[in-house]
């Protein structure tokens, strides 16, 4: 299969869907001729024109709300928020409007929009440009939340998200944008359903449940452990909402040992949810050890690259925690 980057995969997903659906528009800051802060939308302005690829003023609240209004009245929209840290400014339209409208209007007004935003540390962008805020949006009924870890998943999940009739928060990973992976040819339209976890590596001694950039790191750890004949299963949940509980529970039953890993700071992170889902199921009775959690440190993301690298779960820390488990 051909290899393309994560950023290209996202670009292809958007472009293909825009070709297929004239009612799909794309709005955000500097997504036009600039191609987006991370170059994700390169070429789209040229192909689809300014009517469909719309640069906006710097005003995250109205950008998001504009998508809500357009989507509620018949268009579909993709919104790019330049850094997911700026969700702080868009939360009202996302959580109080997009997420609740259909319910509070008694079933009127679906909001088929995708809000894309890159998250994560590792680029030296410091405290206000490096957060992983998926736990906030996963706690809002009415929203779906997706975080892809590979180009293949990014493309397939984004296409599904765009076709979904609900507001979907699609959190990309800055550090993955340039990573490459196999993706089917352009002609081969494929989609990946939301709510299906992916066992990225099968194993029987312990399970790592994770998502986003931590999938790649966990796979590396698993490969290293394999050398010591320890067989780690790595599950990429891919979407936080809906969540493929069955997959987690089954794996926990199989291996009896589970480690949850995410980049977001540990306290109040989505890891707690994953732990609870497992512990509050019949998998509890199969557990040979406490379900462990490894999140980022509970501090803002610092600028210095040495410090920054230590905030998120490292291969060394994942390995050490796994060994505690085993």
């Amino acid at each position, binding site marked *: 299969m051909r290899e393309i980057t994560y950023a290209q995969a996202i670009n292809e997903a958007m472009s293909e869907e825009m070709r297929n659906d004239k009612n799909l*528009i794309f709005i955000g800051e500097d997504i036009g001729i600039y191609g987006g802060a991370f170059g994700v939308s390169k070429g789209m302005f040229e192909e689809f024109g300014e*009517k469909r690829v*719309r640069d*906006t*003023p710097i*005003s995250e*609240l*109205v*950008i*998001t*709300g*504009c*998508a*809500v*209004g*357009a*989507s*509620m*009245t*018949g*268009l579909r*929209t993709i919104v790019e928020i330049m850094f997911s840290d700026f969700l702080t400014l868009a939360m*009202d*339209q996302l959580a*109080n*409007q997009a997420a609740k*409208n*259909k*319910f*509070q*209007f*008694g*079933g*009127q*007004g*679906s*909001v*088929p929009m995708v809000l894309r935003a890159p998250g994560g540390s590792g680029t030296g962008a410091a405290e206000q440009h490096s957060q992983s805020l998926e736990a906030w949006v996963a706690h809002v*009924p*009415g929203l*779906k939340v997706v975080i892809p870890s590979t180009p293949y998943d990014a493309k397939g999940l984004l296409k599904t998200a765009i076709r979904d*009739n*609900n507001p979907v928060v699609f959190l990309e990973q800055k550090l993955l944008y340039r990573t490459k992976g196999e993706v089917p040819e352009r002609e081969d339209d494929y989609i990946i359903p939301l709510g299906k976890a992916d066992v990225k590596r099968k194993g029987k001694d312990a399970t790592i449940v994770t998502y986003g950039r931590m999938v790649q790191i966990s796979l590396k750890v698993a490969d290293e452990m394999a050398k010591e004949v320890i067989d780690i299963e790595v599950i990429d949940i891919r979407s936080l909402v809906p969540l493929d509980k069955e997959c987690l529970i089954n794996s926990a039953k199989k291996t009896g040992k589970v480690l949850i890993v995410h980049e977001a700071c540990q306290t109040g992170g989505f890891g707690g949810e994953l732990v609870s889902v497992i512990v509050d199921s019949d998998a509890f009775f199969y557990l040979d050890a406490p379900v462990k959690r490894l999140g980022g440190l509970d501090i803002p993301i610092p600028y210095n690259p040495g410090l920054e690298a230590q905030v998120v779960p490292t291969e060394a820390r994942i390995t050490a925690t796994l060994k505690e488990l085993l």
Partner: protein
Amino acid sequence: MKLSKEIHKELYLKMVQTREFEETAARLFVEGKVHGTAHFCTGEEATGVGVCSALEVKDYILQTHRGHNQGIGKNMDINKMMAELLGKATGYCKGKGGCMHIADFSVGSLGANGIVGGGMPIATGAALKQQYNNEKNVTVCFFGDGATNGGAFHESLNLASVWDLPLIFVCTNNLYGMSTHINRSMNIEDISIRASGYGIKSISLDGNDVVKIYEETIKAKEYVLKNGPMLIVLNTYRWMGHSKSDPQIYRTKDEVKEWKEKCPVKRHKKYMLKNKIMSAVEIETLEKHAVRDIKAAVEFAENSPEPQIENIFDDVYAD
């Protein structure tokens, strides 16, 4: 512009319906038949009624928390409004939203909002869709004086201006945001001045003059379809407290009294009599209609079933 008798009739009926709706709803609260909160627009009938009566079904409106005049103006079903107030399954939101969230997409209402200013960003999207499809319709966004102090106002007027959206921003200036007089929440002579920050046109009108409001809305619709957004400020007054629990110590009884003398309903009645548009008898008939309509709505609502607990998960997600 000379309005037909039919239009006058419509305006008057809707205003009286609104008046009756609010007074009845207030009574239902006192009687303990409604729980939660509600915000009544008594005294402001001309604003929502005047504007919305000038619109077509395909024109959208975004309503406020104080928007029963807007809903009735846009021909929402009064029965379903009342049923929603009572939290019944037959209400606009199936009892799930209450009157802060009534919406009727079938007549072009994209919903009331519990967040002050919350409808403004949404309005830009609705207008964008109209522009995108080359529709000859517009979006009207209602909000209060207090809402003009929030970031949503600024971002929305700016975006609408930059994109030339067919969007009429309608500010119902009733002098107060809750207890806070506009003199303490902004430092300008007239709210319409704020349009200048976005390079758009604005007008400031007597918000109790339903005829003028109707006429100006007709013109505004034409204007925004050609030129992009404008701001209309309707200066009026809220007769009742902010919400059911407001002791109103922040304003004088005299002030309230003064404004009650400017009653928009009476004013329209006088106007029609003076200009011989309708006779006293015709007017009285309309008033009776209104009373009957609201009574029927209460009956409808009271006789409607409560929502079923089995349906509680409905509509959280679309299929």
